[in-house]
C-alpha cells in the first residue's frame, strides 16, 4: 500500500541545530513563537482553560448562575459512582458504540470496493454514498423521524405492504436504539467510505497486474491482496469510529430525547441535563471527567494495539 511517509528534505539542513537561526540574536531565536502564538492563545483560552476549570468545578457545588458554590471535596465524585443513571447512560453509550461500529466499518469497505470505478457511474455512486454525511444532524433527524413514523412513515409503509406488523420504532424500548443506529450508519458511513476509497486508489495497479499474470482470480485478489493491504486503513477507521461513536449525542437528543424511558440516553446527554437542565455545574463536571478519562483510556489502548501491530508487521 502506498503509505507515503513524508521524507524530510535533508539537503541544505544536515541537522536542525546547524540551521542559521539558532544561536542568533534574541529576535531570531523567538521569531517562530509568533507563528504559533495566535493558535496557542485560542488553544489556551478555549481548550486548556475549560479543561482544567471543569476539573476544578467538579469539587464545588456550583450552579449555572456563575457564583462559585461551596467546596464539596469528592462529594460529587462519590455521588456519581453511586448514581445508577451514570451507569445506565454509560451502558447505552457503549451499546450504541458496539452496535454502530461494525456496520460503519464493513459497509464503508463494501462501498469503497463497489465505487472504485471511473466515469459517471463512479461519480454518482460516490455522491450518493457520501451525500448524507454533509447534512446537519437536525436535517437527518427530521427526515428519519418522518421515515420511522407509525402509519404513514416509509419503513412502516414497506413493512405493512409486505404483510408485516408495523413497529413504533422510536417509542419502543428495545427498538429505539436500533433505529438510531440505522440512521447513524446511513448518515456517517460516507466518511469511512472515503478513507477506504483513498486507500484503495493508493494501491498501485501493477500489484494486480502481477497477480493476474500469476493466475489469481478476482476473489483471490480481493482476499490476498486488497484486504491485507487495507489493514492499516481499517485500524485507523476503527480507532476514529470508536471514539466518534462514544461521543454520540446529537441524533439521539433530536430523535428520541434519550427515551423511551431513558433507554437511549447517552452519557453526553446526561452531562447536558445535569449542567443545563438541572443547573448542577459541579456534578456535570465530575461526570464529564469520568467520561473524559474513559475516552483517553480507550484511545491509548487502541493506539497501543494499533502501533504494536504495525511494528509486528515490520
Amino acid at each position, binding site marked *: 500500500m502506498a503509505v507515503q511517509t513524508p521524507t524530510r528534505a535533508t539537503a541544505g539542513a544536515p541537522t536542525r541545530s546547524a540551521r542559521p537561526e539558532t544561536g542568533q540574536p534574541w529576535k531570531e531565536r523567538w521569531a517562530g513563537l509568533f507563528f504559533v502564538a495566535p493558535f496557542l492563545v485560542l488553544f489556551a483560552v478555549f481548550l486548556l482553560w475549560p*479543561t482544567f476549570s471543569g476539573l476544578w468545578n467538579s469539587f464545588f457545588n456550583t450552579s449555572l448562575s456563575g457564583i462559585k458554590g461551596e467546596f464539596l471535596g469528592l462529594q460529587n465524585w462519590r455521588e456519581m459512582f453511586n448514581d445508577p443513571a451514570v451507569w445506565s447512560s454509560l451502558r447505552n453509550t457503549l451499546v450504541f458504540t458496539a452496535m454502530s461500529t461494525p456496520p460503519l466499518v464493513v459497509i464503508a469497505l463494501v462501498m469503497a470496493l463497489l465505487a472504485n470505478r471511473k466515469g459517471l457511474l463512479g461519480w454518482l455512486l460516490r455522491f450518493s454514498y457520501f451525500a448524507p454525511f454533509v447534512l446537519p444532524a*437536525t436535517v437527518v433527524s427530521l427526515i428519519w423521524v418522518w421515515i420511522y413514523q407509525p402509519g404513514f412513515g416509509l419503513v412502516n*409503509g414497506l413493512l405493512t405492504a409486505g404483510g408485516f406488523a408495523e413497529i413504533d420504532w422510536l417509542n419502543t424500548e428495545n427498538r429505539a436504539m436500533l433505529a438510531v443506529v440505522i440512521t447513524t450508519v446511513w448518515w456517517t458511513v460516507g466518511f469511512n467510505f472515503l478513507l477506504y476509497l483513498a486507500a484503495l486508489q493508493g494501491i498501485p495497479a501493477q500489484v494486480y497486474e502481477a497477480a493476474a499474470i500469476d493466475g489469481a482470480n478476482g476473489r483471490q485478489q480481493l482476499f490476498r491482496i486488497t484486504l491485507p493491504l487495507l489493514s492499516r486503513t481499517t485500524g485507523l477507521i476503527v480507532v476514529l469510529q470508536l471514539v466518534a461513536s462514544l461521543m454520540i449525542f446529537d441524533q439521539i437528543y433530536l430523535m428520541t430525547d434519550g427515551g423511551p424511558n431513558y433507554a437511549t440516553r447517552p452519557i453526553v446527554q446526561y452531562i447536558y441535563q445535569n449542567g443545563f437542565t438541572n443547573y448542577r455545574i459541579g456534578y456535570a463536571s465530575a461526570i464529564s471527567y469520568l467520561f473524559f478519562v474513559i475516552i483517553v483510556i480507550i484511545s491509548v489502548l487502541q493506539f497501543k494495539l494499533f502501533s504494536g501491530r504495525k511494528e509486528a508487521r515490520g
Partner: protein
Amino acid sequence: MRTSWSYPKVASTVGAVILGIVWLVPLLWAVSTSLKPEPETTRTPITWLPEAPTVDAYRSVVDQGDLIRWFLNSSVVAVLVTALTLLVSVLAAYGFSRTEFPGRRLLFGLMIAGILVPPQVLIVPLFQEMTSLGLVDTYWGIVLPQVVAPVMVFVLKKFFDGVSRDYEDAARVDGASRWRIVWSVMAPMSRPILVAVGIFTFIGAWNNFLWPFIVTTDPSMMTIPVGLANVQGSYGLRYAQIMASAVLGGLPLLIVYALFQRQVIRGVGDAGIKG
C-alpha cells in the same frame, strides 16, 4: 483495465447501483414529501410521488419562519470559522514545522494532547467561560471555540514537513521574509490539502449542532441546525413543511459537496492516509 463483462463485474455493478439507490431513498422521500399538499403526506397507503406537486410547503416555511435569518447566521459562522481556522492553523503548522524556539517541542506535545480532549466534555466549563466573557448569543461565542483545531495543525504540519526546504531556502536567498514564505511558498504548494481542510472545516462548522445549541438562546442568533431543531415543535404535525425546511437546510452543503467532490476525496486521502 479489462473491459469484458464477466459475471462478478455485472453483479458488483448491480450491487453498487442498488446500494446507491438505497442510500438516496431517504433524501428523495424527504423531497417527495415536501412537494405534497399537506393531506397527502399522512395518507395510507403511502404515495411515492406527489400526485399534484406543489411548492406551498416551501413558500410557507420561508414566509413564516426564521429560516432566512438562520441561513445567514450559518453562513457567517461557517465562513468565519473556516477563514480563521485556516489562518491560525497554517501559521501554527509552519511555526512547528520550520522554526526553532525555546519550548517548541513542549508546546507541540501539549497541542497533540489537546486532540484527546473531546469538545463534548468541555460544554459546561466553556459555557461558563462564555457567560463571563459576555459572548453568549454572539457570533464570536459560536465561532472562537471551533477555531481551535489541533488535528488541522497536526495534519498541516505533517504536510509541511514533507515539503522540500529547497524552495524556502531559494525564497530566503531572494530576501523573502518568513511571513512572505508562508503565504507565497508554503500555502500555494499545499493548495490541495488547504482546500480539503477548508471544505471539511466549512461542512463541520455549518453542521455543528451541540456547541451552537448550547451557546445560543435567542432564536435570531441560531444557526440552521439549531433553529431547525425547534421546527418540528413549532410546525405541529405539518410534515410537508417539516420536510421542506429539512430540504432547504441540507441543500446548500449538498451543492457545495457536488461541486467539490474531487477535492474532498483527494483531501481525505492526503490527510487521512498519507499523512
